[in-house]
């Protein structure tokens, strides 16, 4: 609506979320500017994944506000489909459609949802496959691809919708160490192209390298945040230091 590039493209204010009695998010706030890459790190169960699932409306929130380009996500009258065209998401388990080939996975949403002409979409899909370095794999089914290859198809599938924000939910957590790298390279290239990225990750080295800003969550709150340099070298909160001590 009244969104300009000087205001955050994604603005999360004081978000609370609970599953039954279990409080998962207890007042989380963060802002992301267009073109920024932020990483959310923290121990398991600290609400990282839940937070980004709330951003594209897969989970709803109890209170607070999440705005994408100035539009409230958890407004009852919001067109969720419109929101999801702007926000792409990549999952830990890839979640490709097993009955479709790689290229069909990528082409499906633009054709069925955006109603774009098939030939145009095919060309774009081929381009995206090239971008994630999977030329020649377009006719392979997900079951015939390795985890890293599947995850890159999943990234291309999200990109085909031309989103303005990409959410990555622990996308390398299910991969073996050798294939982690190929996925991270793809994400880094995306970030360099100026895509706004929100990553939930356990890859500290990667976070240090690509992130503009790092957020550390624990028990449903953001404990500490800052640019990677200060965050990794001068963490002030004891919880952050303990976590980093275990990981690094």
């Amino acid at each position, binding site marked *: 609506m009244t969104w300009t590039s000087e205001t955050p493209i994604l603005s999360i204010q004081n978000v609370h979320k609970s599953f039954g009695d279990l409080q998962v998010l207890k007042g989380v706030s963060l802002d992301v500017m267009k073109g920024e890459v932020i990483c959310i790190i923290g121990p398991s169960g600290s609400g990282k994944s839940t937070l980004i699932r709330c951003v*594209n409306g*897969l989970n709803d929130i109890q209170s607070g506000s999440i705005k994408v380009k100035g539009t409230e996500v958890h407004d009852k009258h919001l067109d969720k*489909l*419109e929101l*999801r*065209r702007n*926000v*792409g*998401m990549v*999952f830990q*388990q890839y*979640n*490709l*459609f*097993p*009955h479709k080939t790689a290229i069909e996975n990528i082409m*499906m*949403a633009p054709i*069925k*949802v955006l109603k774009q002409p098939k030939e145009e979409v095919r060309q774009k899909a081929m381009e995206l496959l090239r971008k994630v370095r999977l030329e020649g794999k377009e006719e392979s089914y997900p*079951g015939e691809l390795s985890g890293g290859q599947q995850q890159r198809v*999943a990234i291309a*599938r*999200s990109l085909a*919708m031309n989103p303005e924000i990409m959410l990555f939910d622990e996308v390398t957590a299910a991969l073996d160490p050798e294939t982690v790298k190929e996925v991270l390279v793809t994400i880094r290239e995306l970030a360099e192209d100026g895509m706004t990225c929100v990553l939930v990750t356990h890859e500290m080295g990667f976070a240090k390298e690509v992130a503009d800003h790092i957020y550390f969550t624990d028990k449903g709150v953001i404990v500490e945040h800052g640019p990677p340099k200060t965050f990794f070298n001068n963490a002030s909160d004891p919880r952050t230091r303990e976590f980093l001590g275990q990981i690094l």
Partner: protein
Amino acid sequence: MRYETGIAQGTGTDLAVLKPINVADYRIDELLFARWLASCPWWTPFAVFCVIACYPLMAHAQSTFTSADAFAALWKWMPFLLWSGFVFNVLISVFAMLIGTFAGVVLGLAQVSPNAIMQRLAWFITQLFRNSPWLVLLFIVLLALPFEIEVFGKIVRIPDWMKGVFGLSLPIMANISEIVRGAIQSVPSAQWEAAESLAFNRRQILWQIILPQCYKRMLPPWMNWYAILTMATPLCSLLGIEEIITLSRQAMEAEDNHPELLVPFFGFALVMFFIYCYPIARLTIKLEKRFAVKL
């Protein structure tokens, strides 16, 4: 030696151990009928026929009507029983399956509807028809449906066999509904989420992403129910519909009702059903095995 919990003297542990459970032993087999039928060797009907062929010799040895006469009578009636009788059984099963499948898919989709009222209602209808005796359903349909209806000012008679088809399609509908519901719910919820995040709406997700993944899972149980349905078509003889059992009884009456006729005539019907359903059951189990590997 010092004693520590978890380490028993000698080998092993003194902690409680959960032994592995073979889940397959406890699961209800939805393909029970097809599996049983498919496990019969192909020569089963011949073996059955040989055994029952001896029956009249022992029981009625003193009669002048020999079992050879009985088989001669069967030979005479066989084309009639086959083409006017058994073919009609097959037709009834095909029509009942078509109607039952169509209605069952609609009902199954309603069972996963986000609308709670619709979902409860579909669940209730499914359970009602799934757990009712087939014969009771057949009689209710026979008595509840009018024997003629008016269409565009013209009186159209509803033939009894059509009522039979409708009555048999009800339990099929309910069972297909359960197959559809089960298959849809067996697709991981992550598939729904992935599709939602790509801005597909509910209808698109269901028809383009979830259901195409279900066909393979649904095919074997669907065929299983077709075999069960075909075996159940003789129930229609109780409604007076002229299928193989009704015609067999009429033919025996025409041959003076000799008790020796009973076994050859009904044995013939049994063999016909076996010949028709056995390949279906074999194929069902084959498909099930093939689809089970790929997932």
